[in-house]
């Protein structure tokens, strides 16, 4: 009995509750006319789509910079890479990896600047990150209208200049990962093997990195900055590295997302994305100061599962479209729960 309670406390009761809730939803699904295989397929797809964003949060949490509300910066870098890739007419795998490569210089520069800024405001990173993210997205909105893109697929028809809000990648690299080795069972279920493999690869690299000298230094900076400083580690430098990695992963994340979703979404789209990632990692059991690969995988899966299943089951059950409301309440409720948990060290 004692060990069960201990297991619960360790694993986190909210995660267990959500897990059972999710299972319950899967059981309830056929009863209200929702196909389980289609739902599972959906969940896996969305997991793969969003996992990189969640992964991107880990470096900054470990280094003590808090939750990266400014993930939008990484996303913008990725958008720049993706649009450039389409502009250059790169297709297929070349297009996808081209986008990744093209976004890297932007991600590094943004990450570096962003990191320098965060170093100046230690202690209030999260709120500032949020608004820096918002301001940057708005700035990019202006840029998307002004930058000299010319590819006809991307620009507005009559005006002849300025990028459209959504750009289809259907002819370029749509589903390039998902299709790779996809496992199909029946007409409703498709497991996006390529995407999941890519995610696993990324998570594995991160796991390895955290065990390298730099990675451990980064964690030290987050958990005990004085000790780290005493050991000769430059706290500022480690933080900047963590921010750059986070930004690059954010850039990779949006490109993975786009190849699965099918569209490059510009203008206001990046505003909401950091929050989904944050909700996911928090539900995965991470705290503001500590995150592991398990948190990422479990969190992304549970969160996307919840976000997929709850609206569809409730909608079918009540015969009304309440998905928006459910989504809002669930995802934000999770973040609030995580934010109000007592942590050992208060700040």
């Amino acid at each position, binding site marked *: 009995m004692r060990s069960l309670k201990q297991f619960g406390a360790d694993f986190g009761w909210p995660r267990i509750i959500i897990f059972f809730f999710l299972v319950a939803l899967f059981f309830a699904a056929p009863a209200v006319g929702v196909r389980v295989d289609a739902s599972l397929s959906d969940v896996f797809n969305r997991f793969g789509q969003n996992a990189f964003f969640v992964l991107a949060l880990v470096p900054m949490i470990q280094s003590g910079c808090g939750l990266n509300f400014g993930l939008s910066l990484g996303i913008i870098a990725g958008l720049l890479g993706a649009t450039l890739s389409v502009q250059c007419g790169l297709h297929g795998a070349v297009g996808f990896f081209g986008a990744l490569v093209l976004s890297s210089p932007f991600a590094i520069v943004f990450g570096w600047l962003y990191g320098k*800024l965060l170093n100046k405001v230690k202690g209030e990173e999260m*709120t*500032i990150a949020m608004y820096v993210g918002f301001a940057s997205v708005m700035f990019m909105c202006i840029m998307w*209208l002004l930058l000299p893109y010319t590819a006809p697929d991307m620009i507005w028809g009559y005006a002849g200049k300025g990028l459209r809000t959504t750009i289809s990648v259907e002819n370029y690299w749509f589903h390039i990962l998902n299709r790779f080795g996809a496992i199909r069972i029946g007409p409703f279920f498709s497991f996006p093997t390529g995407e999941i493999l890519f995610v696993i690869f990324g998570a594995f690299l991160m796991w390895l990195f955290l065990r390298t000298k730099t990675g451990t230094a980064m964690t030290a900076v987050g958990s005990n900055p004085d000790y780290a400083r005493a050991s000769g580690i430059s706290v500022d430098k480690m933080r900047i590295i963590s921010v750059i990695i986070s930004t690059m992963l954010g850039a990779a994340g949006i490109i993975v997302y786009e190849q699965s979703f099918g569209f490059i979404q510009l203008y206001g789209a990046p505003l909401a994305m950091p929050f989904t990632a944050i909700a996911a990692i928090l539900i995965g059991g991470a705290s503001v100061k500590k995150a592991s690969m398990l948190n990422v995988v479990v969190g992304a899966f549970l969160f996307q599962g919840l976000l997929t299943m709850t609206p569809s089951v409730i909608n079918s059950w009540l015969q009304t479209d309440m998905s928006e409301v459910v989504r*809002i309440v669930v995802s934000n409720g999770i973040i609030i729960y995580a934010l109000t948990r007592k942590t050992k060290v208060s700040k």
Partner: protein
Amino acid sequence: MSGKRSFGRFLRENAVILLFLVITVLAIKPSGLSLVYIGQEMITRLGRDSFLVLALLLPIYAGMGLNFGMTLGAMAGQFGLILAINYNILGVNGLIFAALVSLPVSLLMGYVCGAVLNKAKGREMVTGYILAFFVNGIYQFVVLYMMGSVIPVRSRAIVLSRGYGIRNTLNLDSVRLSLDNLLAMHIGPFTFPIATFLVIAALCVFIVWFKKTKLGQDMRAVGYDMHVAEASGVPVDRTRIIAIIISTVLATIGQIIFMQNMGNMATYNAHDQTSFFAVAAILVGGASVKKATIPNVFIGVILLHVLFVVSPGAGQKLFGEAMIGEYFRQFIGYGVIALSLVLYAWRTRRETERLREGLRGGNMAAAAAAEGEAK
């Protein structure tokens, strides 16, 4: 020597206000708007927005940072307005009715918000921000699904065509400008909503008085240092909750005042921007996360909104696209909040470092100077 130093300090401390003034003045000409128009907009917006911004003062005073949870109060106010429209209560009566009806909701919201923030000490601003979204979901559930079905609505005109749920835009003609026009004074080309100004003035008087009461002093102590306050016997958690409750109720009234000026309510979106505008305004006015005064409120409202009025036109003239003006405006809005927060955080760190250095080196002068800079 010290003159140069204090000028530098003046620049740093008022950087945001100065930056804003410069951008605004630069943008007036290309915007193509007349000074009279801008002047009238300033007057109208002072009446419309000041109350909401004033609602932010007490939580800052109590050390809880920027109360992004004020949106909860705004939602309560909108709920009240929907009911007032539903019962077709006209004019100022409608506004008072809305305020009274939303009062219990507002108090409850404030209590919940305060309790949640107490559990997230040190992370109040982020938590408040997310809490606003969370309650927005509940608001939508109530207004979009329950009203008209579970909650009876008399006036079919405000219900969606599907039979339940309130319409996206609510026409507020029945109470439109009722407070503003109650005592409107025309001086030259300008119209002044005197009644609204009086209400705002009353709130200012209330705030000044409140700060002198025991409760107000308690809040100040809590804002200064929670642990010291606790040790002195101040009920810290309770005081913080009260600060948020007052702020929420003020936000409710403020949103009603805002709406009666707008004349039209976007039922599901109107409150989204409330906290953003209020926070931006108070920060532009020179407030910081830890300190805000009443002049900050009015300076901020004027500066922020004048810029908001001129920037679309200026953006269009400069870049040739109206949309850019819009984005520019939002960029400035977010940017100014980010900038203010950065400056504040930077300043606080420098002070603590100065203090630390001063104590370490035994240099009393340096420590005293740092003390002096710590506002």
